[in-house]
Structure formats: structure tokens, C-alpha cells
């Protein structure tokens, strides 16, 4: 018996995809708006939210990868060029990796700076004067722009498929038949 590929992603995959989008955008906006604030008590609440969103993103991206392996998925959409097709596949995997690494580097920073007891435990200890004193902050800062670049590439490619190749690619990542 031959199995045919579905035309659309499974609704679980669709939900997890858009959830990751929301979480990454939220974490990015929070991180950016927070970076200008002084490291005093007023930063604790936004930091707690940013860290919570980061941990939730890690859980969701791992779940998404596992479901990707388990659930049937449509064939890779061809751009009509072997090199671009290869780039497309590589970008998908790189997106998973960078979202994962962003969260893990954030966790590393939290451990290096001892943030959990300060932010969630109410220890009363002050936040570090400068997060850039920690190697993990540099790593976090290198990965995020790389992720942003890949997201732009991913969105650009999706729009190219949708409006230039007119293959209705976006409908694959939405609900319905």
C-alpha cells in the first residue's frame, strides 16, 4: 500500500507553528523593550514574563519537533530550483535549532547570573549590574539576530511562493481541508 502525502499540515502542527510564532515575537519584543531598562526592582516583573515565555517556547518547540517526526506532513514545496529547495529544507531545520538555542542560551544566562531566586524566589538580592558580564548573554545576543534573519528569509520565501509562484503555500499552514 502506498501512502500519499497530505496537502496540508496536521492541525496540531498548524497550532504549534503559530504558537511558536506568537511566543518568539512576544519574547523578542519583551527582550528588546527590557534591554533599555536599568537593572533594578522594576525590571523583575518583565524579566519574569520574558523568562517564562522563553521556557514555554522551549517546551513548545520540542513538542513541535516531535510531532513533526510523528505526524504525516506535505511534500516539501519546490521553488523550481534544486539549490533553493535545499536552502528551504536547511532553513526549516535551522529555525528549529535557533529557537531551541535561543531558549537554552537564555536558561544559561539565568543560571550564570543566578536569576531564578531573584526573579521568582523573591530573594531580595539585586540584579547583576550588567548582564553582558556573562558569556551566556553574548551567546543569547548572537543567536537572536541570526534567528531574526532566518525568520525574515522564511517569511520572504513563503510570500514568494504565495504571490510569485502562486502555489497557495500559506494555506498548508492553516486549518481546514
Amino acid at each position, binding site marked *: 500500500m502506498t501512502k500519499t502525502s497530505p496537502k496540508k499540515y496536521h492541525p496540531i502542527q498548524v497550532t504549534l507553528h503559530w504558537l511558536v510564532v506568537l511566543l518568539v515575537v512576544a519574547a523578542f519584543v519583551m527582550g528588546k523593550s527590557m534591554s533599555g531598562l536599568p537593572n533594578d526592582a522594576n525590571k523583575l516583573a518583565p524579566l519574569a514574563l520574558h523568562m517564562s515565555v522563553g521556557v514555554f517556547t522551549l517546551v513548545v518547540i*520540542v513538542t513541535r519537533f516531535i510531532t513533526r517526526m510523528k505526524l504525516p506532513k506535505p511534500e516539501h514545496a519546490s521553488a523550481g530550483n534544486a539549490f533553493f529547495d535545499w536552502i528551504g529544507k536547511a532553513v526549516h531545520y535551522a529555525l528549529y535549532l535557533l529557537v531551541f538555542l535561543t531558549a537554552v542560551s537564555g536558561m*544559561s544566562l539565568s543560571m550564570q547570573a543566578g536569576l531564578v531566586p531573584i526573579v521568582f524566589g523573591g530573594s531580595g538580592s539585586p540584579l547583576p549590574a550588567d548582564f553582558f558580564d556573562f*558569556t551566556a548573554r553574548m551567546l543569547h545576543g548572537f543567536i537572536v539576530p541570526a534567528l531574526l534573519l532566518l525568520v525574515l528569509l522564511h517569511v520572504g520565501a513563503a510570500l514568494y511562493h504565495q504571490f510569485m509562484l502562486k502555489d497557495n503555500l500559506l494555506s498548508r499552514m492553516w486549518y481546514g481541508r
Partner: protein
Amino acid sequence: MISKMKTAGVLALVVGVLSIFAGGMAMRGWNPGYSVLDWLPVYNFVMGVLTVFIPTILLWRESRHAGASALIFFGVHAGATVLLLLAFRDVVATQSMLAMTSRLAVWLVILALIRASVQKTK
């Protein structure tokens, strides 16, 4: 009997968990009794997490990408060891170099197991 590929997966899991543990403890301020480079615990923690989630799973599932992932991880660790030798020779602790070398040795065993497994299936 557990296959060579799965044995390699278990070894990768062990080396990954140890790396997470050592990196995590050092990042949380644990003093191992010798000076540790600032970036080394972060490297250990991140690579440990990646090891548990990528090569370990690929090896356990006996994926066709398992060999490539093991080779990449061995390459990254070899690169980091060379970097320590060349750029941080004066500041890196002997114990850190010993740990890096031991990890490389485990990865060599993993690569040997993968090779043996591939040869057996040919």
C-alpha cells in the same frame, strides 16, 4: 541484544548529561577547585543539551543522519579543544583540558560504534 547504534546513543546520552551537569553546576557558581574559563561552562551546558536532543535521539532511532550528527559534534568538540590549546593555553586549567580530551575519546568510541554498525549492515 542492544545494537551498536543504540549503545552509541546511550554513550552520547551519558556524555551529554554529564556535560549539562558540569556546565550547569559551574554556571550556578560551583567551584571545582580550579579556575574555569568564563565561556566554558556555557559551552558545556549548551552542547550537552544539544547532544541529548540531537545525536542521542538520532542514534537511538538508528536514523540515517546519526553518523553525520555524531561527526559534527565530534568536529565541534575537536575545534573547541584546538581553540583552547592555541588561544587559551596559558589560562586554561589542566583539568579542563583533560575533560575535553576525555569527551573527545568518548566521541571517538561513538564514531567507531557507528562505523562498525554500518559495516555490519553492508
